[in-house]
């Protein structure tokens, strides 16, 4: 399957040569002429470069277009700082909630047999296929002034919409499936034998979970939290609908990017955007590392 760009294979032993011939014969059946290969690779890479790499580069180019001082000045702006703080707070809340939910749901779904399991997983997946704007809208319909609970909330002086609780709720909705979906297949694959062994050795349910299950899924948990966090910090559509865009109060980082951009403060907008882009890049790197860990874990268990 290896593409030999340089077709020079230097082999000394005759049987090595025979093996190379066999490999070449095998390859011929499963690959294309060299010109075709080069065209396909070039096409794929050009497409990815134009549509994915360039936008990423533009973010940083624009952020630093007025120099490094302007960049840091933009980040030090009180409005930027408050947006960063709010983003961290909201992410902490929704990742925390979804982490607990994910662990609980994965235990129920992966460790037990019951009817309707596939349907339940589909329900957990729902937020993936709901437009972010609709994810925000549903909370406006519940908690808005004309919403189902709007009157009650006003009477009791509780602010959900256009405040942190609303933003956290919408973000939790959008990021709901991440941890559970990372854990369910992993825990299903690991089966229940180790847990059964622990129980038969006298461990309680919690002891079994913390001493046996959790250590086995720790990389999966981290993986889910990582993706959940990236989405929570970057969510735009849902948060935009419920936030009310109160400057310095209910603007998260992505919302501030929009506001600054619409005010033609490009350096500031792209400075905030560059932080989010870095978050995305770090997430991707960590994800790649974690995927290797997860693969290794699986290999070890297959021995």
């Amino acid at each position: 399957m290896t593409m030999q760009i340089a077709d020079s294979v230097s082999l000394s032993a005759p049987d090595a040569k025979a093996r190379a011939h066999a490999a070449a014969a095998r390859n011929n059946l499963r690959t294309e002429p060299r010109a075709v290969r080069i065209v396909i690779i070039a096409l794929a890479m050009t497409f990815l470069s134009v549509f994915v790499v360039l936008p990423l580069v533009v973010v940083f180019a624009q952020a630093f277009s007025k120099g490094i001082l302007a960049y840091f000045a933009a980040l030090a702006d009180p409005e930027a700082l408050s947006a960063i703080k709010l983003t961290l707070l909201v992410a902490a809340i929704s990742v925390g909630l979804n982490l607990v939910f994910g662990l609980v749901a994965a235990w129920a779904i992966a460790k037990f047999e019951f009817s309707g399991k596939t349907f339940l997983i589909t329900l957990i997946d729902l937020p993936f296929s709901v437009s972010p704007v609709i994810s925000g809208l549903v909370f406006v319909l519940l908690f808005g002034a004309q919403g189902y609970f709007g009157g009650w909330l006003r009477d009791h002086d509780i602010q959900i919409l256009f405040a942190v609780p609303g933003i956290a709720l919408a973000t939790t909705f959008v990021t709901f499936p991440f941890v559970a979906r990372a854990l369910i297949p992993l825990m299903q694959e690991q089966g229940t034998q180790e847990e059964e062994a622990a129980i038969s050795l006298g461990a309680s349910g919690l002891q079994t979970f913390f001493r046996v299950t959790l250590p086995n899924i720790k990389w999966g948990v981290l993986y889910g939290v990582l993706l959940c966090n990236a989405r929570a910090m970057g969510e735009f559509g849902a948060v935009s609908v419920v936030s009310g865009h109160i400057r310095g109060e209910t603007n998260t980082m992505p919302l501030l990017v929009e506001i600054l951009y619409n005010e033609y403060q490009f350096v500031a907008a792209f400075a905030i955007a560059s932080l989010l882009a870095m978050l995305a890049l770090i997430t991707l790197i960590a994800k790649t590392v974690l995927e290797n860990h997860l693969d290794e874990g699986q290999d070890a268990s297959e021995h």
Partner: protein
Amino acid sequence: MSAIAARRRTLPGFGLTMGLTLSWLSIIILIPLAGLFLKSLELSPEQFWNILSSRRTLNALRVSFGLAFAAACVNLVMGSIIVWALVRYRFPGRRLFDAIVDVPFALPTAVAGVALTALFAEKGWLGAPLAAAGIKVAFTPVGIFVAMIFIGIPFVVRTVQPVLQDLDPEIEEAAGSLGASRWQTIIRVILPSLGPALLTGLALAFARAVGEYGSVIFIAGNLPNVSEIAPLLIVIRLSEFRYADATAIAVVMLVVSFVIIFAVNRLQRWAQSRIPVR
């Protein structure tokens, strides 16, 4: 016998965890979604129809669904080419490009939106040469199309990639040894095996593009009836306090999404029952 009935499960905590799962699922997902459908029931069929058949709504739905489908088709073709290159060939930078495919997943949509706009604006790196050639991208429907291509790529690649990786090499060797040309092998043997995965990727990319908001609104221009997407129209109706209109559009989009999930689930089940994987 009561002892048996009380303890049917070996591992503890099923009742508790299942109860928590269902409660939390209901509070965060099901009740809010049910609220939306309930709200839409307050509309008479006539009102519902009037909202949907208004010129602006129809155009917004047409822009969202039409361009999303076009973008998903481009992603299907380009995604397949990318998967082929990543899985079948070895070249410098392959692993890097493999990782880069996930950028549209990970990059916040607002960031993607401003970045694509800056790139394709008339003075942008790509916008300038394109403008010189007479093609205007930013602030036109073409811009929406470009943004939808951006966010859809990983869906096709990540759905098809594992299937191609797991495809048994022997079936190609068998086809080759039976005298099929390389092209015949690809069209008659490999493509049918990838069929369900390709369709799934197409459906997922389409579903994502239809609902997309953040990466589109910056580059779209948002001209009513021309470059206004349905999610934006929902936001506009909300800001005008026309909740009924927002709800009606949202319900249509949700129903389409659910139909797509259902189709994808069926596709996946079908694929599992017929694909000759190792």
